């Protein structure tokens, strides 16, 4: 596939091209998918190294599926997100108690010290709030508000209907608002 068309190619086309022996298509697909997958897994698992292992396994399964990939059946990103989410759940069930507090979230270097500390506090608070949610609510609201997936994409990742995604997300946000409301002042909210 010519370099120019790589940037404009759909995920489907890239994966099909890789499945036909196009290495450049595989590199482009890796570039597009890996950052979001890695951030998602890191957030869920609270362990960067474990997250890298999970994402590596998920991408490996994608390469194996490539030769038989049917264009239009599913988006590669939602397919690999689903694999990543399931692998994360497997890891969490094996190793309960790993929290996102262990994750050193990077902070915007442009912020003042005070702002940076507040941002880190908010990151930790949200992580703790997500950890208190039922698994599927946490997944739905994370995919929506942290990974930027649309409701139909989330539905595909979680293998549920769009209405179910909306319900899970709404319930998750109500619960988070309640859990974190008690820490409003600490998080710099409210008058």
């Amino acid at each position, binding site marked *: 596939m010519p370099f120019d068309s790589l940037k404009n190619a759909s995920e489907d086309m890239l994966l099909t091209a*890789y*499945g*036909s*022996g196009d*290495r450049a298509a*595989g*590199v482009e697909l*890796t570039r597009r998918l*890996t*950052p*979001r997958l*890695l*951030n998602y897994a*890191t*957030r869920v698992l609270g362990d960067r190294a474990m997250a*890298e292992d999970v*994402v*590596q396994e998920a*991408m*490996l399964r994608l*390469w*194996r599926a*490539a*030769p038989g990939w049917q264009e239009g059946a599913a988006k590669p990103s939602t397919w690999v997100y689903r694999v990543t989410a399931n692998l994360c759940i497997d890891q969490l069930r094996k190793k309960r108690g790993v929290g996102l507090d262990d994750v050193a*979230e*990077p*902070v*915007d270097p442009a912020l003042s010290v005070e702002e940076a500390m507040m*941002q880190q506090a*908010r*990151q930790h*608070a*949200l*992580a703790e709030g997500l950890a208190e949610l039922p698994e599927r609510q946490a997944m739905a609201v994370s995919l929506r*508000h*942290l990974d*930027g997936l649309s409701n139909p994409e989330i539905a595909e990742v979680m293998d549920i209907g769009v209405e179910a995604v909306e319900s899970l997300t709404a319930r998750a*946000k109500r619960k*988070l*608002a*309640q859990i*974190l*409301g*008690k820490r*409003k002042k600490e*998080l710099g*909210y*409210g008058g």
Partner: protein
Amino acid sequence: MADKDKDTELLNAVELDSLFDAVGQEQSPPSAAFLARLHADMDAHLPHPAPQETALPLPRKSWIASILEQIGGVPAAAGLATAGVVGLAIGGIDPARLDTAAAYLGLEVVAYDVDDLFATFPTLSEDG
């Protein structure tokens, strides 16, 4: 009063969204070492299509060779030539001298009237 207290315990939608933004903004990119691992897996599973056999250029054929190929090669051409010669010979022979020609070729001459070659109408109608 109790309701007001209860309301202050909830984050509103804007506050909640800002929390999501705080986490969502700072996403660390994959390290070079991690990408190298992914690329190694990608390369290991990259399908290799079967190489196409490179066809050697065929030598250009002469027009005679092309024609021979069309009719079935040299043996067929030889048969055609023989038939042609025999045909000419038969056509050029005086019918009266046909017996001589036939004897020369080792053939028996059998003469038919044209009517003998076709069934007559009564015969056809008998056959139904």
